[in-house]
């Protein structure tokens, strides 16, 4: 990882007024939710996912549209280092913001293990979606990565509707399975809060999450390695 690229991206994301406004609102309302439910709603909160989207959106695509990476790549910086540094930076910002609402939970009735599980779960969700957005952003211009994810969401909703209106249990089951498979590749997450109900963490779920994250990192590196982003021949 390149320290300068990491810090530059970190600073760039924190200086974006739109991102900061959206994040502050999201964190505020999540914290209010924690306070109102007295910690009961800590598990499976979507704010990590949304913060991942906010900070990772256009992480590569916006740069490529501006032509900045073409200049960056004239320097002897391996492209995978560039990709991984930017990914690490957006993950760091998203995770930091994700953890903020949990501070309120510590002061409420929620027990420490529940809060810690919730923190880890939400952070992994932020990292997971940041990886997906990074992969999409490497191949799509501007903020089209978010558009791509919205399209995936529409396909999932179409499958849900098809499952709901089909008067057949097999069709409903197939639609549910489709939604789950798409979700595994486009919204990686680990349900850690289930441990609070005595459920052991499935090794398959862990490998599913980790492989999806790494898969999108590889996709991003492969796409950024394309020749069109070079001034020189190599």
């Amino acid at each position, binding site marked *: 990882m390149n320290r300068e690229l990491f810090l530059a991206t970190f600073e760039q994301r924190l200086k974006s007024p739109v991102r900061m406004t959206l994040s502050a609102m999201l964190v505020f309302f999540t914290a209010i939710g924690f306070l109102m439910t007295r910690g*009961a*709603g*800590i*598990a*499976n909160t979507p704010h990590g996912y949304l913060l991942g989207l906010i900070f990772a959106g256009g992480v590569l695509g916006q740069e490529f549209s501006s032509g900045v990476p073409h200049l960056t*790549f004239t320097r*002897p*910086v*391996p*492209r*995978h280092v560039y990709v991984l540094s930017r990914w690490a930076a957006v993950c760091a910002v998203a995770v930091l913001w994700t953890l903020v609402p949990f501070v309120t939970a510590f002061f409420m009735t929620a027990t420490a293990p529940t809060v810690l599980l919730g923190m880890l779960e939400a952070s992994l969700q932020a990292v997971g979606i940041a990886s997906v957005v990074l992969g999409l952003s490497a191949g799509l211009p501007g903020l089209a990565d978010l558009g791509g994810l919205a399209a995936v969401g529409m396909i999932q909703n179409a499958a*849900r*509707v098809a*499952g*709901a209106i089909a*008067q057949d*249990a097999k069709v*409903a*089951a197939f639609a*549910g399975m489709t*939604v*789950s498979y798409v*979700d595994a590749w486009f919204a990686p*997450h680990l*349900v850690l*809060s*289930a441990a*609070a*109900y*005595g*459920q*052991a963490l*499935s*090794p*398959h*779920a862990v*490998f*599913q999450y*980790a*492989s999806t994250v*790494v*898969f999108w*990192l*590889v996709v991003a*590196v*492969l796409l950024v*390695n394309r020749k069109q982003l*070079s001034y020189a021949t*190599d």
Partner: protein
Amino acid sequence: MRPTDSTRILPRWLLVLLVVLLAGRIGFGLWERSHGSTKAVAPSAAGFGHATGNPGSKIDRVAWSDFAHALSMAQASRRPVLYEYSAEWCGPCHRLSDEVFADATSAYEINAAFVPVQFVDRRQEEGHNSAVIDSMQEAHVIRAFPTLVATTADGRELGRIVGYPGREEVRDSLRVFAGRAGGTSIRMGM
């Protein structure tokens, strides 16, 4: 890096990591599917339907989910979880199974609106339950069989039915629970 090195290399360690993780994903997926290691009790072995040896029992049409995946399925499909606690010796449990779970319409409604999970108490037959069943019974404060508990994916209870009040009463209550979950797009009672 050396001046002759390309800046466009794909690091081998990343590829190796991906291959290892994908292999683990496929391997554990197949293993969990065949072994069901964390499964509470398989419906076929749970003492319902034809497997019970009770000639009067009907086929259970509810697509009971593996407990290990129920919460993630509930989260992914935005459906609440319906836990059914029963026991083989329990007469009302068999009536619930025969009149609700074996009924195509009722089973369709349950499959569409919930992620159903079944726990069968085995204390009377085997002297003890698995740790999962015991902890779930304790978590949901189960005092009688059958008990149906509907919860959101994060464990918030939406409602419960203790005992077997009759098919229509069960279906009406389940509709109410599904409605409380919010976001449930399935129309019940079709």
